[in-house]
């Protein structure tokens, strides 16, 4: 295999498939773009034609408005200049997809962002708000590595949501609201699907509700939510779980909550330093990205002999994969954040 046969290469506009003449999650405007999922760093405005997973249509339109969008159910293929393209669940957020490309007997898969937790396949650990990650056999796997360090292992979801419930219930018992900060798209819905709604009312920030609507329209069961402006009985706020994007921390918006506890939900909360920099009462380690054992398992299950690492701890991942006997390299992308700042919570990658 020579580089000329590569099904995906790096171009200034983004990751490009030469035989198919299209891009995957490009960061500059192009003619044809396959979008793995609707987070802002992957789904950018300005492309002429979009292709995305059918289940992601609602969220993608909620974010990008009127675009020329073609959708494809998971597993169905289309042919484009001899490249057979199909989309497969990535488990990251609603409608997130891995892109499988097949051309002249070669199969490549670009993962986008994906969520798989732990070394063993356990259905209890998958993301309840979307179709679970599906391993796809391939020759070359293009993988993310947001949490590509052995310090990142996610605790069982059951324990994590029980922790959140306890924190919420304890706040409610002392008559103060529980402000839980998390990314509006994906993280917020995962929290909603995981908490115990019998503890009290659930209030969401105005940035979260449009995504909730898209999730509900796609058939994802979420508990009842209200906007803070819809709360007529102010006393009920003091028992409420309030879900809002991180940007509201210390803003005037939080004043209407009165006295409240605050917490932050993100994979970065695994580290004490990041928790303390956030200066919230609690940090809940809830991520929509694969943890270290999850990354290893996902890569292994593809059977790929060649792996290309994108955003995250690329150099670590590349060295580790090379030591495992795989051919590994990296693409420099504009996904996530400036890569060096991936341990920062200040400018957090979408949905981490």
């Amino acid at each position, binding site marked *: 295999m020579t580089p000329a046969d590569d099904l995906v290469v790096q171009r200034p506009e983004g990751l490009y498939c030469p035989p198919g003449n299209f891009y995957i999650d490009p960061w500059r405007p192009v003619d044809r773009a396959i979008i793995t999922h609707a987070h802002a760093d992957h789904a950018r405005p300005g492309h002429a034609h979009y292709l995305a997973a059918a289940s992601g249509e609602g969220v993608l339109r909620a974010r990008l408005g009127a675009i020329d969008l073609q959708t494809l159910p998971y597993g169905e293929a289309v042919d484009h200049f001899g490249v057979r393209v199909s989309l497969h669940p990535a488990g990251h957020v609603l409608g997130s997809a891995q892109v499988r490309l097949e051309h002249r007997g070669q199969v490549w898969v670009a993962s986008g962002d994906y969520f798989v937790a732990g070394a063993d396949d356990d259905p209890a650990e998958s993301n309840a708000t979307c179709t679970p990650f599906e391993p796809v056999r391939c020759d070359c796997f293009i993988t993310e590595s947001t949490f590509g*360090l*052995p*310090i*990142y*292992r996610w605790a069982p979801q059951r324990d994590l949501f029980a922790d959140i419930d306890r924190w919420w219930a304890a706040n409610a018992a002392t008559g103060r609201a529980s402000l839980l900060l998390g990314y509006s798209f994906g993280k917020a819905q995962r929290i909603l699907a995981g908490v115990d709604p019998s503890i009290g009312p659930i209030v969401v920030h105005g940035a979260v509700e449009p995504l909730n609507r898209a999730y509900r329209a796609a058939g994802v069961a979420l508990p009842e939510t209200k906007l803070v402006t819809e709360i007529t009985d102010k006393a009920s706020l003091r028992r409420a779980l309030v879900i809002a994007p991180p940007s509201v921390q210390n803003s005037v918006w939080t004043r209407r909550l009165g006295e409240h506890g605050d917490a932050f939900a993100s994979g970065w909360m*695994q*580290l*004490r*330093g*990041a*928790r*303390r*920099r956030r*200066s919230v*009462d*609690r*940090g809940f380690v809830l991520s929509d990205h694969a943890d270290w054992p999850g990354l290893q398992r996902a890569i292994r299950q593809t059977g790929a002999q060649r792996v290309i690492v994108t955003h995250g*701890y690329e150099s*670590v991942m590349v*060295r*580790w994969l090379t*030591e495992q006997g795989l051919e590994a390299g990296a693409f420099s992308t504009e996904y996530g954040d*400036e890569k*060096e*700042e991936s*341990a*920062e919570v*200040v400018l957090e990658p979408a949905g981490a």
Partner: protein
Amino acid sequence: MKAFAQLFNELDASTATSAKVEALKRYFAAAAPADAAWAVYFLAGGKPRQVVPTALLRALACERAGIAPWLFEEAYQAVGDLAETIAHVLPPPTAPSDVGLAEWVEQRLLPLRGTEPLEQAQRIARYWDELDTSGRFLLTKLIGGGFRVGVSKLLVQRALAEVASLDAKVVAQRMMGYTDAKQMPDAARYVALLSQTTSGPAEAGQPYPFFLAHQLEIPLGEFDARLGPPTDWFVEWKYDGIRAQIVKRAGSVWVWSRGEELVTERFPEIVALAAHLPDGTVLDGELVVWKEGAPAAFNLLQQRIGRKTLTKKVLADAPVGFIAYDLLEWGGVDQREQPQSVRRPLLEAAVRGAPGIRLSPIEERTSWAELAALRESSRERGVEGFMLKHRAARYGTGRTKADGTWWKWKIDPLSVDAVLIYAQAGHGRRASVYTDYTFAVWNRRPVDAAEAQAVVEAIAKREPAKAGALQLVAFAKAYSGLTDEEFRRVDKVIRANTLEKFGPVRSVKPTLVFELGFEGINRSPRHKSGIAVRFPRMLRIRDDKPLAEADTLQTLEALLASGHRTAA
């Protein structure tokens, strides 16, 4: 261990004082005295000596986690804390236990010291396997000797006092020396802390909690309005030594450092002088090396403390004196409730009876302006400025203002404008943020901005500097003085201008000029620049200052020549 780990997490998670005190009270109310005894020890800053070298911990963690050392180092760089890195990389526990803190420390941790490395490794691996992430983190901190928690001793005392319905000051005094390495905490000592029977002036060598001063930061013009006339105050020089108490009771002398360490044996000359004090006397003052009629540089004292054996030569080279500035007990009676104006004459009487102990002189002037002028002589005198003690001030506990006020009125630091050339990520709260910087000055004044820029470009191209040519010379490291906001900004600039990475250190294309402050400057053959500065810190970012106008080695030389040496 579970309860203590839970307490640690609560203290660590919260920034609210009330929440911390509540968490402490919950713990103390429920804990067995033997466990609580150790909890108080650790929370109050007690540190058992390191039981196992960190190299062994690293190697063992790699082995247990099945990862290569390089990968462990990468993880450590991201975490910024060794114990936390270990806690996260280890596989989940297979034999969970809930053993109490006292048993952990006494039966397991302390016996590790002196055990064969192989046996140590086997035991530690077993211990890790019993604990969850937070338990492992704590255990590893305790083994490695690096335990710290965000709670002040005052808060611990307050919580204990509230649990036992005692006055916090009583608890504070009973706790003096509690963390001294020579005594082991046990249930009896813990119970004694909370005992309801008051025991009069402390038995044996028990010292009093130190009263600490606040930094005075108001312009001279406001002194009269804010402080009143200078005649309301005792004005004394502020010495740069080790704060200490001399306790003389029942024919014996004890010397306690501000760190509540019993240091009697290190200062035989002080013990000899203090033997002349009457029983029932406690003095507060400063230990300094005293040479040729003046206090000597702090580093002489530091070297002296480092000596294990005090030979005649050591004692002759660095003779230590005690400058007494307060009296806490006299005739066996606690004097701390007396105003300064009463304690001072008693102090003078006490010192008269013990020749050799120096009395801290009082400077009397009629105006603050005159005192400010006098303060300018601080550096020549080898002192840090003035201490202001209100005549009516009682002797308080810790850094409180409830009992009256002590101010430290320090001289302004020396300062130069320097260029940032290397950066390293911080630890703890600053992990993964570049906060530790190395600064340089020019070896000579650049002819113009273009010449300076040419040097910057050469550095960016990794061209080695030519001998004799204009170049930047590193001279100081600093990591404090900026706000979180400013650190974030500088962090961005560093990431955008990184030239090379050497492990955790990055070389940075010079773009930022900082005003660096420091307390003193000395020649040092160990530094490339030939100069060492004391307590360097960042005063501000000089965005207004072009690189070419940063200071030079000659600026530093001039400071040296003008006698701005660290008290030497």
